[in-house]
């Protein structure tokens, strides 16, 4: 777009420097070309001008009054002075007004040190206030929601937060209340401010009015050690800054110029940082002795592991060895993993450990292309909970660029923009395919609709249309694992076959890397049975997860910010990770474990530089066929279960981050009011959801109009309430629990 010659340029003179900028550029952006930083509070590159703070005053020749640079479009021949006496006087006056009722509690303010109000006051303000009256008192430390604390006194009402909530997330729960000097930021409904992107407002806030609960009073910005790395909480691959002090990861900040995240972060990526030093984190290899765990050294652990592998290979052959993992590993580690086991003749290699079956789309696209798409088709689980920052792109495409959002399947998008929701592929409006640029977002779980639409897509591609696919799966580096070869080849077994074989006793040694099939595998019953029957299971993990209950040997691994290497995001871009936090002394990275294992097994491994080169050059692999166990057919009037994702679900890091307690999903079953009535349950009841001999017990009923009739929605991946005992879309029965001790039961499942 930018290369088109039709864009006219205009010449503007800023402080004596002549600039050539495209027509329509705002003055404040044009001035950035010469590093002339015009101060702004309400203006934000991604939120646009608001004209509220009036700090960006500049003097423009031939205009009698000072003009705000943030809303002035440059015109040819414009002559601007950003540092004239008149400008400075205007800024001084505005700053005096801004500070009139500001509490000046900079010493305890979390923003102190990186606060625009401080900076500009130093640059343009006056030393003392002329106001002698008491400052307007407003509520301090207002609990705005589970993540945000608001200090009304510090607020300068720039409305960046309000506009973020309006323009970017489209959720519109933040508003300005009251007027004049009494106005305050509040939620429109007086309800807590709950958003999956709430943390961004603390970064947008130019003063210390909005602060994160997790970071409140933890540190001052100048104390922090900053590392730029890639978030691996989901497959989007956002860049972020990790701020660490005294061995604690204190906060994360978005990277404004990042093309992946567009400068935003979701709350999972931003706030799930409190588990690194959790006392429950495994700090040395653990060996099972009956019901007890025994701490052993790494030498012993690796020797035992190697001996088990060697024995299994020598006696029952390499088919009796299984390896599952890769989606949480780095590219280097995934490559090493498959290289190591393939060298042993093991082909039972698979990264698929949850419900996701595919990670690499046939036609990849970038996020910018997604933003530019005219039709966005979302199949299955919507990305709002699996790849939230990507969902912002969809919202942007829909709201700002007029794209059409079509969701297919039992889930609606869950984001706040208009959508067309259809149940079946056949119901997709045919004009949806008329658009020139089509983006397909597919949850990677059930590939049936993809197969159904295969012909259609091929046709579109032949017609020369832009068709791009995204698979925001459950595991952050699933695409990397696929590209590094963590898939069964040459007759090897995939996860499901490995589990089936294990259930029959056919697997002797199973090595699991950062996966939790007991909680996340689509067929939970099969996974549990398989894990129970496998004699020796090695698990590389941070915490003792549900799967660890079956493991013989648990190896402490490195967490997301403790790793150095490369991953692939869902668009296939290689993202770099830098270690920002020192792992506990007893933990090794998965790569180190594998190197030790290779050493013990006398397997030659590639040199580190070769490994890095390999990790940076992913192989594109054909999209394997996604399979999922079909739900049993049921009657039309049957009650069907829908398994939904939640960004704060998952067994590992979130459940060992006490600061996120309020954000973790509760084991809730959501029903439409009429469905609830038909079942005879009410909100707050405890129910069991039963399918045959499998049951998900002790769910709390919530009744919501948004739920579809005839369905019961449950949350995936909750320890204590593993929804994977059920199949998505399966027919279920609901039994109400007698209210004997509902509180105790609720506590039991919540814990």
């Amino acid at each position, binding site marked *: 777009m930018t290369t088109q010659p039709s864009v006219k340029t205009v010449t503007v003179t800023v402080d004596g420097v002549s600039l050539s900028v495209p027509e329509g550029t705002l003055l404040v952006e044009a001035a950035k070309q010469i590093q002339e930083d015009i101060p702004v509070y309400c203006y934000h590159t991604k939120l646009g001008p608001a004209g509220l703070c009036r700090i960006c005053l500049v003097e423009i020749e031939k205009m009698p009054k000072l003009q705000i640079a943030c809303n002035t479009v440059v015109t040819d021949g414009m002559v601007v002075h950003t540092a004239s006496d008149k400008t400075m006087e205007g800024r001084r006056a505005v700053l005096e007004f801004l500070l009139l009722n500001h509490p000046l509690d900079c010493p*305890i303010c979390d923003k102190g040190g990186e606060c625009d109000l401080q900076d500009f006051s130093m640059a343009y303000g006056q030393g003392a206030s002329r106001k002698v009256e008491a400052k307007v008192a407003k509520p301090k*430390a207002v609990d705005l929601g589970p993540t945000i604390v608001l200090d009304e006194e510090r607020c300068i009402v720039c409305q960046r937060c309000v506009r973020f909530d309006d323009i970017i997330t489209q959720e519109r729960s933040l508003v300005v209340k009251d007027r004049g000097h009494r106005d305050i930021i509040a939620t429109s409904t007086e309800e807590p401010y709950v958003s999956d992107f709430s943390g961004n407002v603390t970064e947008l806030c130019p003063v210390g009015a909005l602060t994160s609960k997790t970071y409140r*009073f*933890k*540190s001052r910005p100048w*104390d922090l050690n900053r590392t730029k790395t890639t978030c691996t909480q989901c497959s989007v691959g956002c860049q972020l800054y990790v701020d660490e002090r005294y061995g604690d990861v204190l906060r994360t900040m978005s990277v404004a110029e990042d093309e992946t995240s567009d400068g935003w972060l979701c709350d999972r990526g931003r706030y799930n940082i409190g588990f690194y030093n959790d006392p429950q984190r495994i700090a040395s290899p653990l060996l099972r002795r009956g019901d007890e765990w025994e701490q052993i050294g790494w030498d012993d652990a690796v020797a035992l592991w190697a001996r088990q592998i060697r024995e299994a290979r020598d006696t029952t052959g390499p088919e009796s060895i299984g390896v599952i993992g890769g989606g949480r590993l780095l590219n280097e580690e995934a490559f090493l993993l498959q290289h190591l086991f393939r060298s042993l003749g093991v082909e039972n290699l698979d990264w698929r450990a949850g419900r996701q079956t595919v990670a690499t789309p046939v036609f990849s696209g970038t996020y910018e292309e997604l933003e530019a798409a005219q039709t966005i088709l979302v199949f299955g689980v919507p990305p709002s909970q699996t790849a939230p920052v990507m969902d912002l792109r969809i919202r942007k495409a829909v709201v700002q660029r007029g794209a059409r959002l079509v969701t297919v399947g039992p889930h609606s998008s869950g984001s706040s923009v208009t959508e067309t929701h259809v149940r079946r592929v056949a119901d997709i409006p045919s004009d949806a395919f008329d658009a020139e640029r089509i983006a397909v977002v597919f949850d990677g779980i059930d590939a049936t609709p993809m197969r159904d639409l295969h012909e259609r897509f091929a046709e579109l591609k032949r017609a020369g249309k832009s068709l791009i696919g995204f698979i925001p799966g459950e595991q952050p580096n699933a695409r990397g694992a696929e590209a590094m070869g963590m898939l069964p080849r040459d007759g090897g077994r995939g996860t499901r076959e490995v589990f089936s074989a294990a259930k029959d006793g056919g697997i002797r040694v199973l090595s699991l890397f950062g996966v939790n099939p007991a909680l996340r595998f689509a067929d939970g019953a099969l996974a549990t049975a398989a894990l129970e029957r496998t004699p020796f299971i090695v698990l590389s993990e941070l915490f003792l997860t549900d799967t660890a209950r079956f493991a013989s040997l648990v190896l402490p691994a490195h967490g997301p910010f403790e790793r150095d290497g490369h991953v692939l995001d869902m668009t296939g871009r290689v993202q770099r990770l830098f270690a920002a936090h020192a792992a506990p002394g007893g933990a090794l990275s998965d790569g180190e474990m594998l190197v030790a294992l290779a050493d013990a097994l006398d397997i030659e491994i590639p040199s580190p530089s070769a490994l890095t080169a390999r990790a940076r050059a992913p192989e594109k692999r054909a999209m394997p066929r996604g399979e999922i166990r079909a739900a049993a057919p049921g009657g039309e009037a049957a009650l069907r279960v829908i398994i939904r994702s939640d960004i704060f679900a998952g067994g590992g890091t979130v459940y060992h981050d006490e600061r996120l307690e309020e954000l973790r999903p509760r084991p809730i079953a959501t029903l439409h009011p009429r469905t609830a009535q038909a079942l005879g349950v009410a909100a707050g009841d405890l129910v069991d959801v039963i399918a045959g001999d499998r049951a998900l017990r002790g769910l709390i009923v919530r009744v919501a109009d948004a739920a579809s009739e005839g369905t019961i929605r449950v949350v995936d991946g909750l320890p204590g309430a593993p929804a994977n005992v059920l199949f998505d879309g399966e027919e279920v029965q609901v039994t109400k629990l007698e209210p004997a001790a509902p509180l105790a039961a609720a506590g039991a499942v919540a814990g």
Partner: protein
Amino acid sequence: MLRAVIAGFVAILAGFRTTFGYLFVKKPTIAYPSIKKQHAPRFHGLHELRRYADGKERCIGCELCQIACPANAIVVVGAENTPADRRSPGERYAARYEIDELRCIFCGLCEEACPTDAIVLTPRFEMSDYRRGSFVYAKDRLLVPPQGGVGSAPDERPNGIPADLGAVAQQKSTVDIATGYDATWYGRALKTERRGLAG
């Protein structure tokens, strides 16, 4: 040549006379710690963290002293007051406040930087110990005990010197003054000979 030799010889003799003469001059040495000198009223010695009259801590954990410290001797970690456990008047207090007195150069910049006059340098300078670690003074040794005199507000101090600094310094002394730590070789405690602020 001969004259030079003689002159050199005389010079040497003059040197000998000087040193010999010093034998009988009164020595200026003060027999510290038996005898202590009164030091300047604003002497920069050991730090203390002060309280308000109602017993709340003045320190708000803002870390300005930490950033002001040219020797990187201070560590502060803030935390939030809760209604149940209110340490300081505002929202924030110092959960950790540590000064490494071995690193400290006693320049007083922390005192300058402190927005609440919480950290002050007392005239106390005796803080010898046997382990390096014991020179990291944490809140348990820096903070004035609640009963230890609350200290006057900064603007009420005569000449800017807190009136009760001495008493507080004595209270916070790391050595038990009551039993006395300084004695002659034959065991006579020299407490009575003490002078200066610490006694």
